[in-house]
């Protein structure tokens, strides 16, 4: 794998072009999670009452936060990267410079992570405004580290899909059949305790589940050693996804 510091140059290219889209993307990043928090948190929260001794919103925020990071990074590396690759031919001009195909792809993943962090941060601000806080400052730092890892993981997974996509419609399979259902099996909206055993096992292997567990601990202050394994699981999955994603993209870019 021919990676170098030039990943940063690619990231900066995205930042320069982003200037023009800041406002619309900020709004987009806010609206969807806000929608979840308000409809589920406040609307449904009124029915479900207390959840582990706290309002439902406290249960909801950590999960929605992580899914916002993962989804934003995914969209960026699906649609964003596809447009740059096929429509704008940006990758073609990048690989004619000392920037390698790997640098270019990793730069786009890094960009997806950054966009994910923006979504996560905005989400957190909204949650705080609604009265939901992480337990401490170190907890916030832990949360950010976790968000970065989740961003890389979902960005890399999206790259695998993008590297295989013949056209835009192909992404629907991934977003509708994989990403959206995953939200429901990862403990974002409700606990998994009442699922049958096989479902619980299945959900353990979904990439979002461990991230939601860590996030929830950060907001509740209830830590356990299982979180270390959750974290390791994310890291291992991420290394695999990143390696495959970059390799497949390189295969597509270089003919």
């Amino acid at each position: 794998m021919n990676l170098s510091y030039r990943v940063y140059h690619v990231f900066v290219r995205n930042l320069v072009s982003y200037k023009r889209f800041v406002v619309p993307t900020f709004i987009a990043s806010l609206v969807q999670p806000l929608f979840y928090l308000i409809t589920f948190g406040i609307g449904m929260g009124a029915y479900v009452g207390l959840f582990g001794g706290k309002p439902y919103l406290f249960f909801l925020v950590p999960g929605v936060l992580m899914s916002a990071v993962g989804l934003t990074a995914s969209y960026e590396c699906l649609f964003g990267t596809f447009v740059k690759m096929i429509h704008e031919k940006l990758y073609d001009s990048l690989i004619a410079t000392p920037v390698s195909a790997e640098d270019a792809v990793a730069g786009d993943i890094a960009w997806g992570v950054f966009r994910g962090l923006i979504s996560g941060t905005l989400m957190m601000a909204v949650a705080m405004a609604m009265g939901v806080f992480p337990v401490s400052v170190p907890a916030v730092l832990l949360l950010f580290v976790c968000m970065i890892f989740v961003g890389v993981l979902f960005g890399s997974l999206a790259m695998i899909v993008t590297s295989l996509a013949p056209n835009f419609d192909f992404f629907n399979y991934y977003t509708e059949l994989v990403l959206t259902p995953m939200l429901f099996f990862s403990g974002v909206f409700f606990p998994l305790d009442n699922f049958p055993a096989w479902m619980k096992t299945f959900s353990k292997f979904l990439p979002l589940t461990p991230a939601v567990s860590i996030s929830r601990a950060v907001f509740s202050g209830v830590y356990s050693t299982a979180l270390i394994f959750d974290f390791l699981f994310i890291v291992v999955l991420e290394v695999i996804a990143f390696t495959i994603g970059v390799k497949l993209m390189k295969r597509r870019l270089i003919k």
Partner: protein
Amino acid sequence: MSSIITAKNLTKRYGKFTAVDGISFEIQEGECFGFLGPNGAGKTSTIRMIHCVSPVTAGTLTVKGLPCSIDNRTIKKTTGVIPQEITLDVDLTVRENLMVFSRFFDIPRREAKTRVEELIKFVELEAKRDSKIDQLSTGMKRRLLIARALINQPTLIIADEPTTGLDPQARHLIWQRLRQLKSQGVTLILTTQYMEEAQQLCDRIVVMYQGKILKEGTPRTLIDEEIGKDVVEIRISQDQDEKLIGSLAGFSCGHERVGDTLFFYCRDGHDIRKKLVELDLPNTVHRPATLEDVFLKLTGRSLIE
């Protein structure tokens, strides 16, 4: 002069399809070397291997003594590429395109700013400095592609059909700029389908067809060897051929019938001119031989798909 690029039995296959079929050539430092050929001849495939964005399937290819491979950043650092397709960054302005590109070559900010201003002047885009790419005409985009290719002060420039789709003004401006670069000692590789372009710019050319090199030489020698000095085109029905060929037999001209036209290729057109006046045929054109005649003779006059 020493050779800067050497290709031996260079081959490119996409799956089972052979796009470049074992070609060999050498390009000298400081010359302008042209690849001519109809659509699909393998020109782009060849030069993409030279600037290391496409892997060599078989054979050897070296640039400045270094073997070409996808990960050869050293070659890419000193090469400027004007691609066939317009691959500008549409999200950015003219100036930003150049500034962002300068990063990829690790050019320090200060230095980059001066170079960008110089290059914008060089390609006469001062008025469009802060315009978005979609506000540029095709000619302007092509000029910006040239500026972008020069940001790293390359010693080797690769231009893939740099003037396709441009009006004469824009085309001449680009020729001027390319000649200017050559006079500064840059080695230039050009692909084109415009024979005039090749004649204007190239010291040596190869004619490619179906992945192979058919002929190599200077534009002048190719015309002399393949065609001669003059061409006579007579638009006349086919049943007259025998009579005409007979009456022009004494002038040692080659002839060819293509569609509605009978072509004569002549070493010396002086005498035949008199004869033509004598015959007083309608629809006759008598003109100097050009590279286009060579091209058509070598690659066939029918449409190639």
